[in-house]
């Protein structure tokens, strides 16, 4: 497993402990699924509302932190967009926020985690999605810059967190084959890897990919190898959605892993699972059963 997270020097010792925990938390055969942690969809229509929601979310995450290890807190700010000549997102209430405003919201999340701290460490993560990037006018180089500057904002968040050794920063994207073309979407990961501050979680799907073998086609012109690229190339690490039917989605991601391993010298592993409320742990179990010892003990869930 790669050590992709990067932190301020003051947190190096904590980092070592946290990453040690991650490494130790890979799933042995038949290991029990971890407790799910909540992730949030962001619906703010004003900057102040986005900030206070992020702060509330951070507090809730901290109060419910299930253990002494590191857990990932994903805030999904919506679809990546070109905002007034810069980068940002349009959120789920259809309001645009620049990266600067998103960074402020992430800092509020950091305050919330800090104020309500109970135990463990938390990686606060700037999430977006590949929803309709091309059709909203975003070129490949635009999308590259989105990934690059997501990592940059994660770096700036880490600076803000520098006096809080129980907090880390990362970036993430819900990359769904059905939402956008593969060539365009790949640029998110290529850009993030060029900046390379922290890992870049892919909490998307392998929508339409086969459930057997080690290659093939997926929805919207994607291939299994493209899903492998956006989930494991460079800074990318997979946190795949395993929703019902659990066994089907777990099998799709197992094909992705086989595809990567058939074409690269490094071995593919899962950095956890994104689960469905009520079925999150069963989804983690399904993926772990198909990929014994290769699924880290992370389980995020929108709505858990």
């Amino acid at each position: 497993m790669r050590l992709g997270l990067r932190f301020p020097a003051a947190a190096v010792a904590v980092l070592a402990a946290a990453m040690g925990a991650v490494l130790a938390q890979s799933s042995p055969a038949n290991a029990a699924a971890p407790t799910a942690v909540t992730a949030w969809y962001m619906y703010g229509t004003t900057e102040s509302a986005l900030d206070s929601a992020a702060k509330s979310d951070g507090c809730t995450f901290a109060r419910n932190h299930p253990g002494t290890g590191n857990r990932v807190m994903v805030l999904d700010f919506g679809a990546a967009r070109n905002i007034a000549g810069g980068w940002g997102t349009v959120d789920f209430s259809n309001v645009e926020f620049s990266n600067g405003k998103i960074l402020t919201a992430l800092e509020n999340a950091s305050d919330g985690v800090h104020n309500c701290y109970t135990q463990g460490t938390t990686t606060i993560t700037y999430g977006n999605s590949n929803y309709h990037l091309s059709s909203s006018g975003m070129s490949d180089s635009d999308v590259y810059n989105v990934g690059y500057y997501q990592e940059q904002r994660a770096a700036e968040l880490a600076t803000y967190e520098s006096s809080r050794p129980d907090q880390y920063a990362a970036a993430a994207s819900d990359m769904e084959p059905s939402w956008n073309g593969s060539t365009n979407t790949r640029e998110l990961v290529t850009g993030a890897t060029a900046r390379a501050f922290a890992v870049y979680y892919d909490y998307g799907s392998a929508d339409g990919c086969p459930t057997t073998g080690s290659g093939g086609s997926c929805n919207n012109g994607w291939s299994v190898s493209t899903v492998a690229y956006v989930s494991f190339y460079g800074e990318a690490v997979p946190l795949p959605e395993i929703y019902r039917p659990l066994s089907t989605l777990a099998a799709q991601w197992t094909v992705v892993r086989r595809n990567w391993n058939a074409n690269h010298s490094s071995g593919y592993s899962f950095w956890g699972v994104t689960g469905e409320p009520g079925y999150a742990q069963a989804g983690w179990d399904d993926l772990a059963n198909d990929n014994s010892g290769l699924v880290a003990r992370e389980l995020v869930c929108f709505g858990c």
Partner: protein
Amino acid sequence: MKTNSRLKMRNPRRRLVIGAIALLTAGLAIGVAATVSSAGQTPAHALDRIPAHILQNGTPIPVSPEMIRVSNAWLDSDGVTLVAVYAGSAGTDPATGRFVIVRQNTQTGQQTLTIVNVPGARVLSIVKPPTGPGVETSAQRGKLPFQTAGGMRGMLNLSNNTAGPR
């Protein structure tokens, strides 16, 4: 590890509600709902009222196409609690109509995601829902009219997460 600002941990309040009623009337089935939630509290809060409305085409959808293929969506917030309803069909079963309901309490950080299925209905669409600033609170527990791909009409009851004939 830094331990200042610690508060006593409150166990997450989780509840699992699974209801399954197989009532078939006029080709509509009351759906299955599964809800899991966790709650917390926070200080200072900015109110963010969003008058009830159908979301414009092109508004990002948060939920994976493997969970739902969305035809349209409705959003409403009274500044504290927010409800977003996504209508369409099940991602891996086009024969099943599906709603995904996202609820948030922006003061406490609580968020739930609930799935309501309408077997055999195929694509569902929300039609003529309550709209405007006057229903921001009441509509969150009211009824949302919908239509199936075959033209049949029904109601999604947001007070108990069930769908049935109109």
